[in-house]
């Protein structure tokens, strides 16, 4: 029990630090695309500390208080349910067979909590953003779940550990080569999941100022930032496990997650934002038809 607790705390802290660092790297790279110097690599840590130590005297109700916790719990939950390094008994945390379905559920747990909290804050922009977010979520969740289903059907298991072990023994065994269309669809849904351009209709700066967190300040915001960083890392590890052969060692984990994290950076700085209906239409048709190809292949 104590061992599990220690591992949970260490894993979460590690993911937080890694997530914040990745965020810093992406800000620096975006700046250099713009031809700017950009912020420090540690800027996210400074921001987090500042927010954590600011006064928080505003609250709007119970759900408003709980939403950042939901976000944090959702992030940590996903992180603990995926095996971080295959075969490492400590870092396997709480993954057990049949875990893929639970992970799928947990992935949307934080978003739903956030939606309730934003609704409680009563800010009109927050409510607009929540309705957009839920709509978009229903659009990408379909193709992401279908992509996961392709893996489960193709490999005959719902356990992430088994999916990882099925990909061992050569790069051509990775699911990205076995199920290229499903992987492409999942990678497209990775963008709206991370709320990057062109799919960031939820936060949409300059449009509905900042969406759900409009009323959130100080400590609440710092918890949401941490939740987002941890969740980001958890998603990266999940994608690496599902499609890119999992990670057998620290170095391969870092390299794979880093490269996967860099991928939205090639898309987001050069694309403007979709309108809500454009985004939803794109997500309904493009990734869904991609995944349908692999689904048919697996079934027939």
């Amino acid at each position, binding site marked *: 029990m104590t061992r599990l607790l220690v591992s949970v705390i260490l894993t979460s802290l590690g993911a937080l630090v890694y997530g914040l660092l990745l965020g810093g790297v992406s800000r620096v790279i975006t700046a250099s695309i713009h031809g700017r110097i*950009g912020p420090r690599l540690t800027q996210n840590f400074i921001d987090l500390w*500042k927010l954590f130590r*600011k006064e928080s005297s505003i609250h709007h109700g119970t759900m408003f208080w709980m939403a950042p916790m939901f976000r944090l719990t959702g992030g940590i939950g996903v992180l603990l349910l995926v095996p971080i390094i295959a075969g490492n008994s400590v870092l396997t945390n709480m993954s057990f067979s049949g875990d893929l379905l639970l992970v799928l559920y947990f992935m949307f747990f934080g978003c739903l909590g956030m939606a309730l909290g934003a609704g409680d804050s009563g800010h009109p922009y927050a409510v607009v953003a929540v309705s957009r977010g839920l709509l978009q979520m229903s659009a990408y969740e379909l193709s992401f779940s279908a992509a996961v289903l392709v893996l489960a059907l193709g490999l005959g298991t719902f356990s992430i550990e088994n999916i990882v072990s099925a990909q061992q023994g050569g790069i051509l065994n990775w699911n990205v080569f076995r199920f290229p269309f499903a992987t492409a669809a999942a990678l497209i849904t990775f963008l709206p999941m991370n709320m990057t351009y062109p799919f960031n209709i939820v936060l949409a700066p300059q449009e509905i100022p*900042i969406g759900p967190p409009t009323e959130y300040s100080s400590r609440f915001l710092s918890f949401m930032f941490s939740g987002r960083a941890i969740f980001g890392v958890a998603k990266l590890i999940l994608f690496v496990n599902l499609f890119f052969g999992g990670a057998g060692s620290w170095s391969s984990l870092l390299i794979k997650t880093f490269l996967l994290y860099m991928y939205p950076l090639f898309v987001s700085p050069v694309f403007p934002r979709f309108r809500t209906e454009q985004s939803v239409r794109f997500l309904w048709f493009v990734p869904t038809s991609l995944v349908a190809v692999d689904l048919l292949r697996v079934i027939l």
Partner: protein
Amino acid sequence: MYCNKIPDKPVDNEKIWKKLDDLARANSLWITAYGTGCGAIELRPLHTSRFDMERFGIAMRPTPRQSDVLIISGYLSVKTLKRVIRVYEQIQDPKYILALGSCTIDGGMYFDSYNTINILDRYIPVDVYVNGCMPRPEAVIDGFILLMKKIKEGKAVGWKRYKENLEYYRKNQREIIRNWDLPDYNW
């Protein structure tokens, strides 16, 4: 729906973290995206590659709840003052005010106008003034650097001054805003 409670007077009892806090605050200034007067136009270039304010950790926030700095970028009409008070009081402590242009210092070329204020510091506590008509982006960045220095030295305490002397500021505000309909404090 808002709380009408007057805020408590600030107390200083957390000395241990103070140095670290001030360092973090100075290096992570988030500005409320709010512009008054002519000066707002000079804030836009700060985002661009040429001036790049992000290298100082300065960023724009679309909501006062999440920001630290309110920039009064030029002359302030009485009507706008009312909005500025609302925005300022919604920002969470600690918060700072940067005032741009001669209009905020002594009224500038609008010194005898019937509907603008002359000395901003009488209505809300200013931490740093940047003079000029209009200050160029370089001057604004210079103002930010001065503000960062003051924060690190623990001297940017306008927000404490405001809470401690709330009656004084309220009296001045009420004198000039005729149709006063604000709550006791805008949380």
